[in-house]
C-alpha cells in the first residue's frame, strides 16, 4: 500500500487536572519521554519508537478530556489539497501558525460533526530521542514503566457519527475497517488511514466532544501483561483487562490517568489493506466485539468518559 495523504495520528492534546501527577503517570508509568515544557505550561511527550518531536501534549485545565487530535499528512502540498477538499465539503477550517507548539509547522484545524477538533499538519521537527537511523539499536535507551512505543489511536464519543465517518472517508481518505450497530440510535466506526486496524474510532453519544480513550502501542501481549503489573504495583485504576478486542483483535487493558482520562495499552491488531471488506458487528454481539473474552460490555464502556 502506498501510504500518502493522511499518514497517521500525529499528536493528541489531553486536559489534566494536576500536571505533576499527570507527568508521573505519562512519563514514569506509561514510559513516554518528556520532551519539555512550553512557555504556556503545556508539557510535551513522545513514545520511544516515534521519530517526531512529540505526540502527547498535556494541558492543565479545570476539566479533563481532549482538546484536539491531529494527523500528520505527507507534505505541505498535501496539506493544501486537504484544506481545499475540506472547504469544498463545506467544512469551516482555521489556520494555526507554525510555532504555536514548539517544533511544529502550520496546522489546519476544523470541528467535525461529533464536536471534536481535528487538525492536520505536514511538518514536525525530528526528535533527538527517536529511533537511531545508522546501525540502529532496538532502542536508544531501555524503555521505562509500561514501555509504550507510540501514541496509537483514540476513541471519541459524540453525535452524528455517520456524518463523521463520511467526512473522514470522503475528504481525508480513511476507510471503515469495522463498524457496529449499537441498537436504537447508536453506531460505532473504526477508521483507518494506514495498514493499522484503526487510527481513530467513534461511538455515538448525545454529548458532543467527549473523550473515551487514548491508546498507546505495545509490541506484544507479554508487554500488555507487564503493563498490568505496573498498574497493580502503582495502584493505577484498571477499567477492564487484560483482555482482547474482537474488533481489531488487539490485546488490551483500559485504565485511567490520575484525573480520570481513560488510557489504553494496545498490542497486535490485524493488518489492514484498502481492499479489505468492512467487518460488521450486530447489536447482539457487540459485547464480544468490544471485549472478546468477557463477551459483554462493562457498565463503564458507555457511561464513563471525559
Amino acid at each position, binding site marked *: 500500500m502506498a501510504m500518502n495523504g493522511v499518514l497517521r495520528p500525529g499528536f493528541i492534546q489531553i486536559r489534566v*487536572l*494536576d500536571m505533576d501527577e499527570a507527568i508521573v503517570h505519562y512519563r514514569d508509568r506509561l514510559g513516554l519521554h518528556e520532551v519539555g515544557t512550553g512557555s504556556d505550561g503545556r508539557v510535551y511527550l513522545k513514545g520511544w519508537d516515534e521519530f517526531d518531536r512529540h505526540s502527547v501534549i498535556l494541558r492543565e485545565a*479545570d*476539566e*479533563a*478530556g481532549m482538546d484536539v487530535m491531529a494527523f500528520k499528512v505527507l507534505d505541505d502540498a498535501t496539506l493544501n489539497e486537504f484544506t481545499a477538499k475540506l472547504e469544498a465539503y463545506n467544512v469551516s477550517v482555521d489556520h494555526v501558525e507554525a510555532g504555536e507548539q514548539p517544533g511544529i509547522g502550520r496546522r489546519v484545524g476544523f470541528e467535525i460533526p461529533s464536536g471534536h477538533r481535528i487538525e492536520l499538519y505536514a511538518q514536525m521537527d525530528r526528535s533527538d530521542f527517536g529511533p537511531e537511523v545508522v546501525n540502529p539499536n532496538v532502542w536508544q535507551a531501555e524503555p521505562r514503566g509500561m514501555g509504550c512505543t507510540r501514541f496509537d489511536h483514540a476513541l471519541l464519543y459524540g*453525535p*452524528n457519527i455517520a456524518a463523521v465517518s463520511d467526512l473522514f472517508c470522503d475528504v481525508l481518505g480513511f476507510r471503515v475497517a469495522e463498524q457496529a450497530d*449499537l*441498537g*436504537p*440510535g*447508536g453506531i460505532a466506526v473504526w477508521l483507518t488511514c494506514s495498514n493499522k486496524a484503526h487510527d481513530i474510532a467513534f461511538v*455515538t*453519544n*448525545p*454529548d458532543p466532544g467527549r473523550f473515551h480513550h487514548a491508546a498507546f502501542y505495545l509490541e506484544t501481549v507479554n508487554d500488555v501483561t507487564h503493563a498490568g503489573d505496573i498498574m497493580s504495583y502503582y495502584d493505577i*485504576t484498571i477499567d477492564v483487562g487484560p483482555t482482547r478486542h474482537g474488533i481489531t483483535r488487539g490485546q488490551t487493558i483500559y485504565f*485511567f*490517568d*490520575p*484525573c*480520570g*482520562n*481513560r488510557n489504553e495499552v494496545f498490542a497486535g491488531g490485524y493488518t489492514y489493506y484498502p481492499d479489505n471488506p468492512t467487518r460488521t458487528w450486530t447489536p447482539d454481539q457487540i459485547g464480544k466485539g468490544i471485549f472478546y473474552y468477557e463477551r459483554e460490555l462493562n457498565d*463503564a464502556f*458507555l*457511561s*464513563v*468518559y*471525559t
Partner: protein
Amino acid sequence: MDHVEGVHCCTVVDGDTTVSFDVRDGGRLLHEMIAHRAAGISVGCRGGGCGVCRVRVLEGTYTARRMSRRHVSEADEANGYVLACRIVPTSDITVQCAPVPVPTLSSA
C-alpha cells in the same frame, strides 16, 4: 455509630436507601467505600474527570481536590456538590447521590 479515633462514618443517602461505611482519616470518600466493599455511590474513573460519583454533602466537613468543572460548577461546589472520588472527609459525613445523568443512545 460510636466515634472511633481516626475513622469517620460516611452515610450515603440514595432515595429511600441509606448505606454507612467507615472512612479512614485522610482517605478519599469513594476509595474508602470501595475498600470497605460498600456500595451506594456509582464508581467511574476515580480521578475527578467523569462525574459518575457526583454527590451532595448534606452534613459534615471535607477537603476537596480539583474536580472537572464540567460536572461540578462553582455554584454547585458552593452548594455542597462534589465528586466523591476527590473529597477527603474531616468529620462524620452524610452525602446524597447526585449523579450526572448518563445520556442514552436514542437521544443522540
